[in-house]
């Protein structure tokens, strides 16, 4: 194994990690901060990718330009999902956790079914875009441009989310609603408004990542499944309640994955990620930076 291989692997791992972070950032808000399970996270990503794809096919909008549009569309979608489904799931007195898991799991299945119904199960790709297929090479290390941009978007998204949660009253209201949804009314907060906005924002972040992903990934109704578990592990590894944790979690997952692939057969790549998660929580039951 040459040094170049190792450096290239780590560089790719880092970029991939930031991408995992980008995919997880929406989840870090909904699952990590608001403490609501969203088993349909992968499917949110899937429709974001489809949205990007169709904007590209029908209006020839480059995914990069489409990103804000997709984010806006997903914002609406997320808020609607909250108001129509999740609102009732979080309200459930009996075993709220399971109700959340299974109502969103049901939603995931429905979304896949709808995607198959309307978009057919065909594999789609955005065939050419400004960034697609471009690569910069630094001293023999190849860095694909879409992933680089994805990494930048990830950093920006995490930064924005961090400021948003820690510097605004809305962020605090979100946390308060998570702590005791029944009590926020005591200080005049409308829990549904806050959570609907939270879901909208979370979904909008997924929208961003979907647009970036569409540049270089294939799209089909089940595509979300490839990312969902990693996104969950990323958020939990970083620790619930911490935006920075999810960011760090993504990077670690990417690097661990790359390292594992160097040491073990690549089909066992994921084992490295999972093992690191277990190791971390066995030592620190609240994840790396978690507050809850």
């Amino acid at each position, binding site marked *: 194994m040459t040094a170049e291989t190792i450096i290239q692997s780590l560089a790719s791992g880092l970029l991939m990690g930031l991408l995992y972070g980008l995919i997880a950032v929406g989840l870090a808000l909904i699952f990590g901060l608001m403490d609501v399970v969203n088993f349909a996270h992968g499917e949110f990503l899937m429709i974001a990718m489809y949205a990007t794809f169709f904007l590209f096919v029908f209006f020839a909008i480059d995914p990069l330009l489409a990103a804000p549009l997709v984010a806006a569309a997903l914002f609406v979608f997320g808020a609607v999902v909250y108001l129509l489904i999740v609102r009732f799931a979080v309200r459930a007195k009996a075993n709220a956790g399971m109700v959340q898991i299974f109502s969103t799991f049901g939603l995931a299945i429905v979304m*896949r*079914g709808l995607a198959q119904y309307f978009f057919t199960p065909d594999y789609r790709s955005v065939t050419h875009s400004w960034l697609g297929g471009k690569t910069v090479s630094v001293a023999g290390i190849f860095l694909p441009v879409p992933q680089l941009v994805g990494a930048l978007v990830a950093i920006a998204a995490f930064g924005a989310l961090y400021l948003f949660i820690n510097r605004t009253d809305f962020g605090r209201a979100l946390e308060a609603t998570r702590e005791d949804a029944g009590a926020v009314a005591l200080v005049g907060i409308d829990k549904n408004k806050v959570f609907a906005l939270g879901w909208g924002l979370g979904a909008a972040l997924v929208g961003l990542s979907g647009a970036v992903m569409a540049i270089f990934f294939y799209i089909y109704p089940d595509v979300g499944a490839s990312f969902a578990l990693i996104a969950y592990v990323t958020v939990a590894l970083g620790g619930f309640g911490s935006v920075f944790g999810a960011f760090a979690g993504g990077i670690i997952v990417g690097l661990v994955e790359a390292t594992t692939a160097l040491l073990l057969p690549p089909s066992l790549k994921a084992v490295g990620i999972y093992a690191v998660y277990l190791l971390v929580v066995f030592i620190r039951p609240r994840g790396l930076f978690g507050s809850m």
Partner: protein
Amino acid sequence: MDTSFARSRRRDLIVAFCLAATAAVVPLFVKDVYVQNIMVLTLMWGALSQSWNILSGYCGQISLGHAMYFGIGAYTTALLFTKFGVLPWFGMLGGGIISAVLAMALGYPCFRLRGHYFVIATIVIAEIVLLLFHNWDWAGAAMGIDIPVRGDSWLKFQFTRSKLPYFYFALALACVAWFVTWWLEDSKWGYWWRAVKDNPDAAESLGVVVFNSKMGAAAVSAFLVAVGGSFYGQFVSYIDPESVMGFQFSLLMALPAVLGGIGTLWGPLLGAVILIPLTELTRSFIGGSGRGVDLIVYGGLIIAISLARPQGLVGLFSPRRKEAAR
């Protein structure tokens, strides 16, 4: 007061007996193998969900990795049989014991985790085991294990066409799982588990050793699920990692209990009786279109039921619940 409680316990037992007896004669009238197949699956999933319910429903340790025990049961039996000629009955027992031991070994580090950290740990551990099986050549790796079926035999627990033996085994398994739950529900363990689920700190202050309670629940639950897995392997007579350990099996194990009523005696069976025929029928009769309509129907129903009755469908039937709510 005391007697009314005893009476309702006895009533549960009588109802269960009547149901089991009725179920036992049904296949004598319903000869269609497709329908019988659905009945076998319903009973099996009912039993699995009932077993899952012990750890996750009663004791509150939500596991979405139970497919691992299911798979280990199936693999132990199949490997012992195909490699060493050990009869499946011993394989079943062996798989159960291995799973129970594994459950406790894993419980040791995992039960310190709370909430989502625990759930994700269960998913991830099951996923690791799945990947290991996927790459374990001796155990067939991705090729799986094709259990050779030579003819009808109770000894080897394999039957070419008849579903009846499988049906009665699944019925027995469901009965055992139900009875174990019934029995544990009104025992020290049953109370401890519910206490641990509701408030571990308070439980600890009342002399409940929280850790041991969780271990007990995990072992019982894993054992029964592994027996179910062994059965499934024999029933399908072919196993591969994806088809016995996939994540979807863990979800499917939880789903009947959640829809029927998590942490209740009747919930898992009720959920299975509704859910399994539904999934089978939607797939069979609208799945062939290739347009995903079956998914939309199935997913939609899951959303509807879990939102409309978060406490589970069982509340619609059980007078005891209503009493408690009074």
